[in-house]
């Protein structure tokens, strides 16, 4: 079977699988977050935390809950990382303070940027108790906030947007844990390892010695992809044969990455009572995902068959097509797991991965964050185009007025500001520049990629950049923290503003937000906003490299 045929088959199977679960999973999620029954384990947790699961919070209270949970998570994970050498199963793993700060922010923000080497930087205990826990809860926070925004849009003048603790608990207990369990079993069956035995030292053919680490990889691998986290057990991430041994596990991992982000629009459609609304959003996401897949695959295919081309950075086990598919999915979802090294991609291919992040992680984006990011794009589209039908802009019967556009516009500006200012500053700070491997436009791409990845909570890297140093650890940490929570709070404020409104009835005079035209409009707005913001940077980085 030629690579094209197997590549197309892989994509075909993936798309079919995603389409098959879209409706049932989306509906299941809708039921999870509207059900008025609690599981025993959930009730126990609510009693423990003193939460009344039937109470609904205003947006400010919801945001405070998110903030409190984040602070506790940061302190706990930071402490765990700093003290890991004194804890069991350390096996010599330790971290600098700035690396620990960066890492704890990274995992709490669902970024999972790793400026340390996975297997030697964090002990098995920390990986399991700290990082794996954050893999679950940071993803659950994203889902919770997305659901809160949907509730705001669907609410009729109630002012409340649900209960964060309930949403968080249910997202973990009823969504992430069961799916991750199934995913882990499948990956295990596919050949991913899961053992706690001591590292083995082997002699290589050339006579050297190599230490082979092992650990509870399959379980962590499943949630790493499912929660769009991306922090690998091993430094090589999904390019490591223990994490991703073959084409089958590669496909399963991509499926796990995309399954929740692509199903959440259905949940949205369900909860607002008009399934077509969800379809329009999924259409928008799928269009851009497909377009970028075409670009990256084409660029990599062309590069690998050109006389100067090489397979540098790609696993021969997986090949160009599967690597491009993984790269596109991981950068379009804020996952950041990699099965090939994006640094070594062709300028256009790497630029494509970069563009996926610069779009704001909305195609389909991270779990939850992708949906709320896409809905903000929808709100911008409604605001600009809605006027053109002669009415004050409205989405789902909710007016987009002064308050709402302020929140949506500020949301749009946060990550571009972090990326641009972060990159520009790093390029003039000599300490940061010292970490760069490449010169010329590729060097710029390296730095731009790093700040784009951190600010948009992706976590993948142009691996050429040596990021484990105080300046980069701290500024990237700041980007991750601000890039995650400032937009999140703005989304919650938006949800609150919508929830306080009456719902206007839909008439022939209302701008439809469920049509292909509207999906196209969202594509236009997303591309235009990103393009206008980043065209100079992209021109100096990937474009200059590609055109020289």
């Amino acid at each position, binding site marked *: 079977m030629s690579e094209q045929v197997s590549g197309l088959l892989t994509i075909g199977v993936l798309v079919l699988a995603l389409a098959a679960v879209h409706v049932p999973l989306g509906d299941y999620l809708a039921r999870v977050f509207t059900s008025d029954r609690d599981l025993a384990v959930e009730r126990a947790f609510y009693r423990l935390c003193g939460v009344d699961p039937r109470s609904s919070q205003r947006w400010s209270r919801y945001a405070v809950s998110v903030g409190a949970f984040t602070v506790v998570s940061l302190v706990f994970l930071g402490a765990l990382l700093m003290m890991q050498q004194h804890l069991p199963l350390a096996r010599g793993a330790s971290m600098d303070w700035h690396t620990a700060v960066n890492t704890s922010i990274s995992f709490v923000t669902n970024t999972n940027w790793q400026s340390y080497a996975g297997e030697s930087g964090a002990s098995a205990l920390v990986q399991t108790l700290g990082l794996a826990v954050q893999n679950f809860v940071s993803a659950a926070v994203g889902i919770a906030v997305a659901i809160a925004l949907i509730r705001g849009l669907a609410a009729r003048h109630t002012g409340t947007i649900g209960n964060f603790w309930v949403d968080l608990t249910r997202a973990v207990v009823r969504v992430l844990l069961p799916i991750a369990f199934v995913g882990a079993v499948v990956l295990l069956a596919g050949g991913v390892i899961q053992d706690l035995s001591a590292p083995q030292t082997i002699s290589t053919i050339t006579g050297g010695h190599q230490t082979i680490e092992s650990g509870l990889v399959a379980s962590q691998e499943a949630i790493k992809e499912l929660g769009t986290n991306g922090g690998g057990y091993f430094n090589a991430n999904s390019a490591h044969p223990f994490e991703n041994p073959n084409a089958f596990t590669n496909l399963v991992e991509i499926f796990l990455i995309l399954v929740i982000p692509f199903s959440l629009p259905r949940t949205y459609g369900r909860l607002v009572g008009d399934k077509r609304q969800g379809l329009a959003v999924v259409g928008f996401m799928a269009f851009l995902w497909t377009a970028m897949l075409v670009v990256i695959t084409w660029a990599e295919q062309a590069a690998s068959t050109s006389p100067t081309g090489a397979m540098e950075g790609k696993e021969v086990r997986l090949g160009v097509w599967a690597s491009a598919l993984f790269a596109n999915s991981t950068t379009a979802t804020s996952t950041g797991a990699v099965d090939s090294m994006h640094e070594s991609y062709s300028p256009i291919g790497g630029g494509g991965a970069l563009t996926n992040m610069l779009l704001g992680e909305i195609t389909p984006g991270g779990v939850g964050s992708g949906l709320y990011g896409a809905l903000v794009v929808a709100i911008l589209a409604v605001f600009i185009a809605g006027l053109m039908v002669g009415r004050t802009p409205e989405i789902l019967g909710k007016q987009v007025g002064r308050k709402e556009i302020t929140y949506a516009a500020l949301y749009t500006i946060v990550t571009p500001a972090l990326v641009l200012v972060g990159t520009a500053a790093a390029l003039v700070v000599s300490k940061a520049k010292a970490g760069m491997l490449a010169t010329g436009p590729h060097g710029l791409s390296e730095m731009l990629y790093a700040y784009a990845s951190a600010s948009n909570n992706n976590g993948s890297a142009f691996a050429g950049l040596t990021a484990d140093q105080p300046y980069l650890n701290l500024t990237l940490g700041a980007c991750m923290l601000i890039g995650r929570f400032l937009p999140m709070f703005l989304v919650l404020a938006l949800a609150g503003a919508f929830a306080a409104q009456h719902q206007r009835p839909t008439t022939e005079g209302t701008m439809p937000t469920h049509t292909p035209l509207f999906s196209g409009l969202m594509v236009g707005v997303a591309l235009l906003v990103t393009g206008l913001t980043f065209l100079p940077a992209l021109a100096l980085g990937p474009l*200059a490299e590609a055109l020289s």
Partner: protein
Amino acid sequence: MSADRDEDTSEERARPAVEERGTSNLMRPAIENEGTTNTMSSLTTQAVESLPGALRKADPRHLVRQPVLFVVWISAVLTTVLACIHPSWFSFLVAIWLWATILFANLAESVAEGRGKAQADTLRKTRATATARRITYGGGEEEVPAAELKLDDRVVVEAGQVIPGDGDVVEGIATVDESAITGESAPVVREAGGDRCAVTGGTTVLSDRIVVRITARPGETFIDRMISLVEGAERQKTPNEIALGILLTVLTIIFLLAVATIPSLAGWNGPKPSVLVLVALLVCLIPTTIGALLSAIGIAGMDRLVQRNVLAMSGRAVEAAGDVSTLLLDKTGTITLGNRQAADIIVVGDGEASEVHRLAHLSSLADETPEGRSIVDWTADRLGTHHDSPSGATVVPFTAQTRMSGVDLPDGTQLRKGAAGSVCRLVRESGGAGADEAMAIADRVSADGGTPLVVSVGCEGGATDAVGVIHLKDVIKPGMVERFAQLRRMGIRTVMITGDNPLTAKAIADEAGVDDFLAEATPEDKMRLIRTEQEGGRLVAMTGDGTNDAPALAQADVGVAMNTGTSAAKEAGNMVDLDSDPTKLIDIVGIGKQLLITRGALTTFSIANDLAKYFAIIPAMFVAIYPGLDSLNIMRLHSSNSAILSAVIFNALIIVALIPLSLKGVRYRPLRADQMLARNILIYGLGGVIAPFIGIKIIDLIVQFLPGM
């Protein structure tokens, strides 16, 4: 007494607004395209006249309220300083065109304001400067300047005098010439009590004597408010304008960041672009077009209403009009002609139809009511001739007691026509025939929504027979059915308000094609209806004139008070229709929509423009570092300098090019939202992407011959 205002004021009545009256029909091409070369040349004249005003507005203290233009101002100052330090043709040209951008932006606003000023000047001349005859506590009269009148003062106004201030007639009845405000030359009657008691300062009493209680302080009268409204002095930004302003500001910040980080990004690997080029790029990217035209669009929207003789008390009301989803329309005068007309005559018994028509004709000859005349016309049509009243006939006038009218012919024949119940009672009492049948027919007519009139014939002392039933019905105004269909397509619900019984109301509602009706409506019912609609999230528009309409007018999102109405109604509403034409409500909705569409279209156009500007400036800026980027120069512009200058010039000229559109408003047709969206995205979105590629290329072809390119 300085009531020496004479004929020369009549010339002032011919203000532009008047010329437009009566032809305003939003659903038809009235605003599609007012102008050809004629309006263009008048626009040019206006633009030239507005230049001094535009220059005055270049004051940074004025611009600071518009962040986009303020950034342009700072950029212009910066480039001017740079051009002075390092003089070159290029730097001076860029600086000049940045100043031109500011000038053009202010020109748009000045032209829009200038249109209102002309109208305000006319109004100002009509403002009363008269003295007033105030009634003192003792009951005597004293002369005071009109400007010293206080609330609740009573003043006497006699024929030929100007009413010194807004107020209500508390004594007497008079005809008043209100042409100064309405442009309507026919005098109106104003009388104490009731819904026709309001008088406006500056209008002239033509006959009789009235006592007016002053209800507005000097300086706050209706005319004063009109002046400040049309001048835009009281103009406040509307909610949607503020929201759009926020988006534009945020976009400006994004572009500021994108441009400010270029030196660092480019400097990493080569020479940094000059500050001049960066400033030029910034001005091209920030949404100057819509930023410049935003306030002009708002002013022009108000102005379009003024041209239709509607005064909006706030821009917010105009915007709300675009959002209206329920229209409450009074039946009489809005949906139907003011009066009922004969539609049919049904023969009672086995009489000859033509004979019945003749009798009905004769019975109505003396009836001067519109209904009576319509019967005469209808029967004359059928008979083919128009009879004269037989000589010697005695007219029996209508009275509230008999509820019938008629005529006694010289031969003793008594013709009667009137309410079915009364005439049939007369027939029964006289022992005549046909009463039961006539009653049954009358009931049927009522059930169809018509009004039955029974015609009887008899002779003095003898039996009176019912011979026919006239079917009077409400006649729907021509064109209304189509309009309601259009409104429905636009997603607007129409509710007919009438005092008729539900049966009659339903028949008319069905015929007119309105979505719903409110029969036997009391002011409380109206209020309740508005509240229910609003609770369902709908915005409601209505018209009203009576004092009892005031609460509903205040509650409605768009309340249009008729100028003939009471001052309470005018206070309560947020618009006043000087023509007192309730049908105009539909036009007002269209104008509101047009305002929003224009704003959205130009925003889309402005943002879409940026793509081409990037393609002009980015290669120009970076080609020195990375020659490969020249392949992005898809317009094949002459040189880096000419590319940048062309983009800057395009950016300035597009503002001028769009001033007419922003004043006239985007062409608006009542379409479904999705059709309208697709159409406007095509024109202003796609057009906005393509137009600057062409424009910049053309400018570049000219600019390349300038020195320094």
